[in-house]
């Protein structure tokens, strides 16, 4: 196990760089000393070979999609094609400045515009902005669009957002950041939104209803046409959380379901790598009539066929320093072109097939709270046999011992022992079969030798980190660490 910190490899007198020198006269003394640091930052002094070996070895304590199966529900951990990385890393892009005149970056802008257009077709929307940096940022931006819309109509009293109790945590959190009050709508026993519960909530104070469809249980909200009608009748707008778009790609479109505003997680559905947490991208699309509210700056195509970066007064404002995560957009576009309409038609279908296959193969041993077909993911409420005392957490940790990333656990909050599995379309039947076999073994183990499962993981680089200690006495920097 390699667990050193780079600071521990530092020795004064080492360096890992060589800078070009412009040969100009040193001038830093022209700045008053009072405006300069008293004390240099304590950064490591290391040579290049040491840096490379350090991070190389550090990486081996990590698990990525290229390592193995990553059935993390709601996260759509699909294969990230290598051609996209090649495109994103092209050195011809490396030194283009965000403030270069438009006519010197026509290729970059065309890339943006093309992706905007293709996403609009995929989502069934009028227009997209690529600016938002992440799914949650897309939600926030989308809610701002909605607020800007209501404001434009002088409708100031709409201060609420309705979200299902099964919603991703980002939904209520984004609503709060957007200054909206969250009202929860209940789910029915089949996991879908309870329309009867929703109806009375829809009054003139509601700005929007946020939904993801299929929802976080992987269940398609079949009443969505009715919900859309109710929402619109109430003067509110319907927001689509794109985190669960994957099973619908090429099958159905949020725009056709009555959603007014949506975001897409490019790092989920469009296969840009998650990078240990980011960068992702959360483009926001809107139906016709809302495009004037999309944030500044916008990439538009002029009549002469050239592209431009535009700021408008009707826009909700600016939510990003510039135009979003360029390289992420480049990857997504490369992915869409590589799929083509033929490949796109299979993404959702195969993702759904994979999920149903696992579900059907394990439902005798794990508690399936909601019957019927699922979409890209589904949720077990822990083991079927509740007598063993083995929890979802135990099962998840035991999976690590077998070389799998764990599913999402304890979400959604509707069940006590939620175990949310999303295989994606890029996993083979053999991989699923192996996973199913291990899941079945764990269920058997839970009955026969429960202490083995409860004590898991056993084979991982580290085991049972003390979360409580970490939270009680936060040590978040090396300085704190050596002084603690």
């Amino acid at each position, binding site marked *: 196990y390699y667990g050193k910190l780079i600071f521990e490899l530092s020795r004064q007198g080492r360096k890992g*760089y060589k800078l070009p020198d412009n040969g100009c006269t*040193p001038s830093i003394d*022209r700045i008053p000393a009072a405006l300069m640091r008293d004390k240099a930052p304590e950064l490591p002094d290391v040579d290049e070979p040491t840096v490379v070996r350090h991070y190389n070895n*550090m990486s081996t304590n990590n698990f990525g999609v290229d390592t193995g199966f990553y059935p993390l529900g709601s996260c759509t951990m699909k294969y990230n094609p290598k051609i996209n990385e090649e495109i994103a890393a092209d050195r011809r892009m490396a030194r283009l400045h965000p*403030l270069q005149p438009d006519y010197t970056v026509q290729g970059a802008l065309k890339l943006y515009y093309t992706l905007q257009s293709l996403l609009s077709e995929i989502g069934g929307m009028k227009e997209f902005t690529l600016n938002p940096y*992440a799914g949650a940022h897309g939600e926030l931006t989308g809610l701002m669009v909605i607020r800007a819309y209501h404001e434009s109509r002088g409708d100031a009293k709409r201060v609420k957002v309705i979200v299902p109790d099964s919603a991703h945590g980002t939904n209520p959190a984004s609503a709060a950041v957007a200054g909206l009050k969250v009202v929860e709508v209940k789910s029915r026993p089949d996991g879908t939104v309870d329309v009867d519960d929703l109806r009375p909530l829809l009054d003139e104070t509601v700005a929007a209803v946020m939904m993801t469809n299929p929802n976080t249980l992987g269940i398609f909200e079949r009443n969505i046409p009715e919900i859309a009608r109710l929402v619109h009748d109430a003067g509110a707008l319907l927001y689509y959380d794109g985190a669960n778009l994957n099973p619908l790609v090429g099958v159905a479109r949020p725009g056709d379901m009555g959603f007014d505003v949506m975001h897409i997680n490019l790092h989920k559905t469009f296969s840009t790598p*998650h990078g240990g947490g980011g960068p992702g991208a959360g483009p926001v699309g809107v139906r016709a009539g809302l495009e004037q509210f999309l944030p500044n700056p916008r990439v538009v195509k002029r009549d002469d066929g050239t592209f431009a970066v535009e700021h408008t007064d009707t826009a909700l404002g600016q939510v990003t320093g510039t135009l979003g995560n360029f390289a992420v957009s480049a990857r997504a576009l490369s992915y869409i072109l590589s799929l083509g309409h033929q490949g796109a038609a299979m993404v959702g279908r195969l993702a759904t097939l994979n999920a149903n296959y696992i579900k059907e193969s394990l439902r005798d041993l794990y508690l399936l709270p909601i019957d019927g077909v699922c979409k890209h993911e589904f949720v077990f409420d822990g083991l079927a046999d509740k007598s063993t005392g083995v929890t979802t957490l135990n099962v998840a940790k035991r999976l690590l011992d077998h070389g799998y990333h764990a599913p999402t656990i304890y979400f959604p909050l509707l069940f006590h022992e939620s175990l949310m599995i999303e295989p994606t379309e890029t996993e083979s039947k053999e991989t699923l079969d192996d996973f199913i076999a291990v899941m079945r073994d764990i269920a058997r183990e839970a009955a026969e030798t429960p202490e083995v499962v409860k004590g898991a993981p056993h084979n991982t680089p580290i085991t049972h980190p003390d979360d409580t200690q970490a939270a009680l006495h936060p040590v*978040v920097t090396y300085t704190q660490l050596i002084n603690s």
Partner: protein
Amino acid sequence: MIHRYFPHTGEDIDAMLAKCNVASIDDLYSDVPRKLLLGRHLNLPDEMSEKEVRDFFDSLFDQNVNLTCFAGGGYYDHYAPAVIPAIISRSEFLTAYTPYQPEISQGTLQYIFEYQSMMSQLTGLEVSNASMYDGATATAEAMIMSVASARKRNRVLVSATVNPAVRDVMATYAHYHGIVLDTIEEHDGVTSRDDFETKMAAGDVAGVVVASPNYYGILEDYTGWADTCHSKKSLFIMNCVASALGVIKSPGEWDADIAAGDAQSLGMPLNYVGPYLGYLCATKDLIRKMPGRIVGATTDDAGRRVFVLTLQAREQHIRRDKATSNICSNQGLMALYVTVYMSLMGASGLDEVNQIGCAGAHQLADELVKTGKVKLKYPEYPFLNEFVLTTDFDVDDFLAKGVDCGVLGGVKLGDRELMIAVTEMQSRDDMTRLVDIVKQM
């Protein structure tokens, strides 16, 4: 139809459908109302081979003009070490999710801890989170933090010398979040102390946001500002160019409570518009108000020093609408980028970067002024590596002429106002070229 990204054979599909007790994949969509089904292929291009994808992007990339970059305005063309792409493209880092499972995610957790440690050193503040989207959103989050910390008060002041893009994003967030954002006036390139004191007087300010270097490249003197803020129970927030913090007085040394800004200047390629990286650091007592992931050290059952995501109770997936922020995905891999950058550079490398940029900027400024066609707009104030000129000529004309000569001559601030940045990436010859263009105006 087989596509190279899908492992499914016809036989596999048949066996899986049988297990699912359905006759076709489309039967798995039987719960979707028929009228919602697309019933056609998406109107996308035909599936492309890699050659066709490469040809497509090659043609796009060739429609851009690569220029020697004297533009800054918050984004700087710095040396990007070759080591970094080699490391961040390690699939274990690249294709991992957020490190929810610490047992198999120590790689990510460890570099975030290193990142937090380094950003804390750079800003002089005790704690850092695991990254933000960009400098503008990080500063907006800092603004929200100040309001959350202050309770009841929802007024924030921002200096007019803060980067306008940052102020725009702050304004957007403020507007929808219900924060009153007031601007402290600028006088002659620096924040008006008088206006600051006046606006602070009422005692209803949750936070004050200033910049260093400010948008014009000027290093302002914030002596006493933190005291004023703290005497009014306001937080003092600084937006800084990360690279400059290698040498300039740090937010910690100015006694600031929060530092937020963009870390792009730490060797990240401009890449037209990113990805970049927002940083957010604060004093220790603010840690539970911070947005985003935070990694902490702890021990495992074998006594090993290990790292975990900590203080998750602040976050959206636990606290939902009561969370400190909605941030979920951040810029993880870019945090690794700057961590490796700072590892390679160390304090001496950052010092050198600033020394070279500073030397170049001052010499270039002197030579440009010597042409007689331009003047320093703010000759009274010190700058590090970026400065504003007033010009005898039309700035658009000048920029266009620069493009013809392969040079991005700066950032236009007005028809006769030009801002120029110098880093270690522009050679003496490049500067001479720029001076020659000015001479020809």
